[in-house]
């Protein structure tokens, strides 16, 4: 952790700008570009700041970076990006990608993503990541040159492995269940929270109507007039206060959303393990079959049914020379296979070890972050109640003077 990039470099995503340009199909499109500013942290300097470097990136480039990292470091739980489209919105917020509030929240999310990568002991050392932050031109080409897309496992292959693997590490199976549960519970929570926010908004805003009626009513009253009028004012304050309260809550929702997306990253690591394990199992099985075949040929006994065996029975046995040749080939293959199996085993064990280390790191991070988020949520609620108390105390005073 002491060597990670975040300690050496200040990273911010400071601005967002609407741009228009031409896309790959030469059609005009509007997109948002984000300004990434970096500055070296001089621990010894007093009052002297290093110059700020900056470059612009758009969301699709962030996506490219993340895909690269996921493929290149399959044993790492790669931090997720903020959502592409606004989801879990309650009615007041728009689901429009160009909406300034959405853009602002996305800017914060992208900054958070970069900081997480920069604080990760393994990821922060990646060169592509570094150039993402510092080299505007030619970065895309650099990424593509790594050929990472070729290394990516096909979705179909991964799915196949998930169903057919026989002996995955139990911890990964548990982890997969956990990430499924996490995803389902957080999305449920976010959905209900959005509905609760909607309703709360309604309650507060209707109180605003009181303000207007009280004011109109106070016009015809003599003794009650002043009390009504000032009470009405407090009702207006009450109704207006909900906007800030809910904006703060959005931030909390975003923190939860990050972990919703982290669930997918966890699943990706589990899938990789399953794939490797399946590969291993297939290789082992293949080796066993070959060994058996070899034995059969050598001893002339047919233990397993095979079409070849049948045909040779029907059409006559092969010559001893042919048999010798076959056995030689098989022996070579067996030797290759055994070496492969050994290396695959090693790979698999390494993967499990390093993946599990990162998973432990992730678990600690998650527990810490969730606790903080829940605490800040509680603080928000308390502040909302304090505001409520203030408004209604004032209103009560006005009412009692009526």
């Amino acid at each position, binding site marked *: 952790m002491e060597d990670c990039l975040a300690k050496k470099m200040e990273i911010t995503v400071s601005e967002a700008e609407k741009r228009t340009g031409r896309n790959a199909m030469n059609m005009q499109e509007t997109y948002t570009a984000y300004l990434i500013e970096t500055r070296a942290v001089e621990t010894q300097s007093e009052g002297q700041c290093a110059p700020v470097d900056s470059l612009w990136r758009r969301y699709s480039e962030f996506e490219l970076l993340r895909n690269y990292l996921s493929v290149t470091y399959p044993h790492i739980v790669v931090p997720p990006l903020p959502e592409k489209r606004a989801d879990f919105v309650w009615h007041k917020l728009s689901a429009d990608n160009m909406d300034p509030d959405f853009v602002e929240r996305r800017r914060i999310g992208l900054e958070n993503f970069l900081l997480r990568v920069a604080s990760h002991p393994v990821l922060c050392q990646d060169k592509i990541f570094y150039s993402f932050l510092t080299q505007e031109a030619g970065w895309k080409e650099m990424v593509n040159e790594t050929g990472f897309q070729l290394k990516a496992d096909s979705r179909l292959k991964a799915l196949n492995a998930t169903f057919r693997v026989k002996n995955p590490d139990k911890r990964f199976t548990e982890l997969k269940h956990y990430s499924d549960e996490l995803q389902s519970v957080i999305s449920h929570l976010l959905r209900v929270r959005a509905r*609760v926010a909607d*309703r709360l908004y309604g*309650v507060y805003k*209707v109180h605003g*109507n009181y303000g207007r009626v009280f004011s109109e009513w106070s016009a015809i009253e003599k003794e*009650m007039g002043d009390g009504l009028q000032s009470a009405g004012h407090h009702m207006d304050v009450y109704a207006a206060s909900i906007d800030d309260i809910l904006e703060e809550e959005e931030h909390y929702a975003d923190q939860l959303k990050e972990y919703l997306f982290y669930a997918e990253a966890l699943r990706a690591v589990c899938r990789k393990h399953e794939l490797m394990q399946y590969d291993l199992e297939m290789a082992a099985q293949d080796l066993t079959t070959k060994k058996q075949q070899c034995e059969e040929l050598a001893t002339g006994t047919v233990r397993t049914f095979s079409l070849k065996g049948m045909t040779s029975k029907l059409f006559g046995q092969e010559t001893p020379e042919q048999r010798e040749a076959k056995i030689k080939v098989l022996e070579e293959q067996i030797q290759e296979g055994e070496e492969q199996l050994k290396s695959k085993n090693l790979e698999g064990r390494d993967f499990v070890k390093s993946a599990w280390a990162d998973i432990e790191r992730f678990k600690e991070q998650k*527990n810490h972050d969730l606790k903080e988020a829940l605490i800040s949520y509680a603080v928000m609620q308390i502040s909302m*109640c304090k505001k409520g108390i203030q408004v209604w105390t004032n209103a009560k005073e006005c*009412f009692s003077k*009526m």
Partner: protein
Amino acid sequence: DASLAEVNSFSPSMPISPSSMINQYKFEDEPEQRDLFITVDDPESHITALETFITYRVLTKTSRGEFDSSEYEVRRRYQDFLWLKSRLEEAHPTLIIPPLPEKFIMKGMVERFSEEFIETRRKALHKFLNRIADHPTLTFNEDFKIFLTVQAWELSSHKKQGPGLLSRMGQTVRAVASSVRGGGAKNRPEVFTEMNNYMETFSQKISVLDKIAHRIYKEEREYFNEMKEYGPIHTLWSASEDDVADCLKGVASCIDKCCKATEKRMAGLSENLLPILHEYILYSEILMGVLKRRDQIQGELDSRVDALTNKKTEKDLFSEEIGRLEDKVEYANNVLKADWDRWKQNMQRDMRATFTNVAENNLRYYEE
């Protein structure tokens, strides 16, 4: 004295004793001056061959001399209350008679015999009788006394003795005729025109307030429904976690507490604010009616005066009648003015109390 006013918080199953009755009612005067205590409770349904109806127990305790006994218990049905109200209106056309709960509320689609409906009606009937008892003039009305004291069968026979249907119709005809003539409006003293204008605006504002209050209640109910689902999700989540589980469970229990607090707040609204607003909506109608009746009485006087100026003969006859009518009008006006002031004071106090109550409920909610 406002500091002695207590918000009406009546519970039907309380044991009735004079001291506990004191705690149940809202006072206008010092407690020592009150000498008539009335409760309405214990609804019971009766099924006959022709109809099904509800009766309420009306319990009266008094120290007044004109009452033969100090305690009375009778059963009355809604029709009986209607009768009482119309008798009071006849006897005191320009006094402000308190409102009765409506016959049947279409808006809420409430079953006629649903518990909620019966309870709301019972509370309103209770308030009705107590407001009459508090009224300096109405409290001594003879029909009121009869209503409180006689048994059911006696009441039916007394009702039949009242002014016949024909005479009541005659009154109505005269009233319509007078209003067609635009009676009373042209010679109306300034103060009553002011009252009229005030009432128009007031009734508008009150009905808007009523709508707002209902809307708030509805929104709070929806909020409550969503919150009910919100808490358990956190508990569910805590089952998958170990380190964060306690935090999550804590949040879940807090949310449940918020739910309960919301329920309390809603109850406060429906028990205090909504009924009062509704009562004052009814009051607006009543007051408009009272002002109209005053105009009618004035109208009668005016028409007679007009007739007099046209027919010089039969002067004596007319002048006597006119004198009588003038007295009537003056009496009516004074009585109305006094009652109006009283009503306004009451209204002020009611509004003050009820909105303060709303504020207190909200405070309690937020503190919880």
